[in-house]
């Protein structure tokens, strides 16, 4: 019995509870599919309403997203110190009110509600582009796509983790497209000082989530995003 339990504890996947369309996003050349998240409130309708809002916001980001800012570090003899960052996303919030989404599927996972949405009325769910989790360790190459991934710790409210990981993935994609690196490092026998500054100023559009992954053992989740070339 002990060995059986041991075997089962290793064989159960971290991601078993999530629907497939959440982990491996449906991809179509004709339309985009977006997942909205919300906490599970007392009234499910409230959760869906909020998830729908998040979805509309994501559609606006999908259309056009400016990622601008800087990230600063200082080298010291004991390692690099993170000074802070000002990287922000800017998108057209005016567009949100005109976006009409249709919900294709919903799921309740632990304490959050997920909705799969698209624009238009086609309710068929196409096949995903990604069908495994090898992208977590090694970045894949897909012809016709620029891809990047972002991570976030697992927070108390898991939907915050996914939102943060998605945002970080978009920032990663922006820094992939262009990243300006400036650094000054001064070293002598007794001290190491200086500063390094990375800056990004990129406009992206049509960035969509391709896959998601959660690792409860190490306490983080990952999101892979892609932008068609």
């Amino acid at each position: 019995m002990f060995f059986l339990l041991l075997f089962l504890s290793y064989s159960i996947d971290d991601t078993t509870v999530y629907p497939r369309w959440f982990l491996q996003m449906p991809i179509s050349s004709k339309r985009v599919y977006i997942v909205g998240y919300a906490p599970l409130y007392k009234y499910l309708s409230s959760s869906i309403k909020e998830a729908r809002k998040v979805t509309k916001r994501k559609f606006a980001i999908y259309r056009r997203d400016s990622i601008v800012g800087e990230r600063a570090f200082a080298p010291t003899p004991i390692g690099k110190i993170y000074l802070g960052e000002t990287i922000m996303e800017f998108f057209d919030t005016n567009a949100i009110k005109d976006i009409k989404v249709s919900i294709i599927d919903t799921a309740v996972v632990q304490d959050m509600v997920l909705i799969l949405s698209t624009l238009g009325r086609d309710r068929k769910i196409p096949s995903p582009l990604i069908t495994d989790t090898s992208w977590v360790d090694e970045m894949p190459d897909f012809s016709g796509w620029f891809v990047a991934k972002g991570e976030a710790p697992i927070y108390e409210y898991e939907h915050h983790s996914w939102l943060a990981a998605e945002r970080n993935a978009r920032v990663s994609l922006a820094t992939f497209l262009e990243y300006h690196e400036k650094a000054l490092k001064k070293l002598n026998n007794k001290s190491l000082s200086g500063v390094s500054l990375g800056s990004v100023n990129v406009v992206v559009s049509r960035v969509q989530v391709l896959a998601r992954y959660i690792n409860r053992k190490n306490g983080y989740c990952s999101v892979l995003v892609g932008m068609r070339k």
Partner: protein
Amino acid sequence: MKKVGILSGLSLVLLIVSCASSGGAKLDVPDWFLNPPKDPNYIFGAATATSRDLQIVIDKAKQDARLDIAENLRSNIQGLIKKFDEEVGRTEDSELLQQFTQVSKNVVDQTLIGSRVNKSKAEKEGEMYRIYLLMELPIGEARAELLKQINNNHHLYTRFRASQSFKELEEEVRKLREYEKEQQKAFEESE
């Protein structure tokens, strides 16, 4: 009785295996971190970092790896060696002390297009996150295509610029650019 015997045997094997593997803390460092790949079409930069915050650890490692790549591409290292000779004591037992002080200053100013994480490995070390990361930069490839995505209209936020370190950084970058211009001019005149 036979089942008990088999279970006891299995337990013994597991015990031996666990004892054998618990001889000290083993660092599980990926091979690609110790021996970064070599490819004529890419420059690689490997980095590792630790922090309690996952996002900070990723950002730190990425910055380190990108800096490594940027330094490989082109950097301006100004070295200065100061030698101090000091004589201590009287003639018969005098001791010549030579002290070397090496001062180096490294300035980087580089735009990276297409730099991305090729491989990564994240793990938890107690309360800390550790990440190993391999960053790659394509040389030439896809650069022109990516430039289309750039928008230079936004220029925001200058909170960092207030500090002395950043002023010094800007000054050094300005000097480097001037130096490059002079070099370019001198080269053109010599032709």
